[in-house]
């Protein structure tokens, strides 16, 4: 049985792969990277919403901590959404330096964010939500992105 930590960590890896693919395509031809950029953006958005609309809510209800770690993670999601949107704009403007400048910044922000979640938040969520783990994973899997 998959745990919340395993499920969401595996999703991080999936997003990392899409990110690497996007940069790979962009390094050959920036104009061809639009599709890969949108795919990465959509999958990452899906991941954020799985957390914000399902797991974080369950965690906050269970622990009563609404201004704690989940608030910080939500704020970093906002920072990343801003960068992803600007990356797509850079592709439209055919500005390769801007694109890689943004992707570099996003990469490090994303990785340190993932590390904090995988090291701290997910183990804690698993600990508090172990009884509902299966149901929460199912809710995340069937989520329709808004």
């Amino acid at each position, binding site marked *: 049985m998959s745990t919340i930590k395993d499920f969401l960590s595996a999703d991080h890896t999936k997003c990392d792969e899409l990110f690497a693919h996007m940069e790979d395509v962009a390094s050959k031809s920036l104009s061809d990277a639009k599709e890969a950029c949108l795919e990465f953006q959509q999958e990452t958005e899906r991941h954020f919403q799985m957390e914000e609309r399902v797991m974080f809510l369950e965690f906050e209800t269970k622990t009563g901590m609404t201004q704690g770690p989940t608030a*910080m993670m939500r704020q970093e999601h906002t920072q990343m959404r801003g960068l992803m949107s600007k990356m797509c704009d850079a592709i439209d403007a055919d500005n390769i330096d801007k694109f890689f400048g943004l992707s570099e910044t996003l990469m490090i922000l994303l990785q340190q964010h993932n590390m904090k979640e995988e090291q701290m938040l997910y183990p804690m969520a698993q600990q508090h939500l172990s009884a509902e783990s299966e149901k929460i994973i199912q809710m995340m899997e069937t989520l329709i992105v808004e």
Partner: protein
Amino acid sequence: MELSGLSVDQAPPISAPLRFYLTAPLFAIIAGILIFFSESSILMSRYSLDSIVITHALTLGFLGFIMLGSLTQMLPVLAGVIIPKVDNISKISYLFLTLGTFSMLLGLSLDSSTFTTLSIPLLGVGFILMITVISLAILKVKNFNATVKAMATSLVFAAFTVIMGLFLLYTYINEDFAQYRNMIANVHSVWGIFGFAGVLIIGVTFQVLPMFYVAPKFKRFCKKRVVWLISSGLVIWLFTSIFVESYSIIGKAWIATFFWAFSTTVWLKLSARRRPISDVTVWYWRSASLFLTLGSFLWIFDEYFKHEYIVMVAILLGGGFILSIMIGMLYKIVPFLVWFHLNAMGYMSIPTMNEMINKTLARTQFVLFMASLAGFICSFYFPYLLQISAGSFTISMIILQYNVIAPVLIYVKVKKTKPDFDMSMFAKVD
């Protein structure tokens, strides 16, 4: 579980690591100037005072400052704990270490027992304070991963290296203990380079290569065993070199083999990385890997040449390996910290990381630094190359100083001019 590391309010303020990062290149500039005014024949001996002063301007001033700054910054992210009162502690430690390093350099250069005596409590308090609070924070870690284990191991070696260093300083005040100087200095340098710096670099590399370059993750064996194997090698080397010197080569070969394996792994991981970008930081990782391989082998061969090449080993390992990695890391960390803190404050119209440091200047700095390392090595055979290499090194470190200040100037300017917050960035992207 400790979660305060997740909160930006309680994460280390940007000033905690930056004060260490911004001061470090200054000591390297001083080292470059000192080399310029030295003579090749004097620097050929590792125990000459000139060599000791220059080495410590680099190891204490440059490497020590960057490693401590990085520990304050990385511990919350990598281990999920914060260092209690990190800002105040790092301020006090920074003050003691800066004054202590200058006192030591002056004391030994001018043969002034006043400065040397002063440097002992200053450096002792500065280091012990940081090592103690970081160790206490690590004790609270619940999720002990390979990087945290390496950090903890590195701190143990750091503590021994510092205590031995303080004793060595004391031998310059009280000559009664001078007879132990060379033996202790040998252990101090090997444990400092391989145990403190080497193990810390290995631990951080486990995270940083996959994180910054989407390189393949390190194998479980590597993560679980390498630090333990190197540490046991360092202990074996210690006992053999003190009690049965003829067998110390076993410990050396053991340590060198695992560092060589590590450097090869780094090279291969970089080659297999998913990110196509090849910036100056990748060049630094590549060169660090090469220099570590060369340095490890030369360290073994040096045993058969009456330690004739030990200074060359120090240049390859200290300069080529450790300095390269530290400089490469600075080029990533400083712009990221500036961007992250400004963005978290709500400033959205700010330069990206890549726009904060001039790429041409970073490349120039790299080329001058590499040229200086090659020149230092060649100056063993062609002494007239020493001054020109020292010049190249000094200029490269002045450029490095500028390159790490540039992002901080952007930070100061943005905070001062306070551009309007772009609240649209908080809207969800459809």
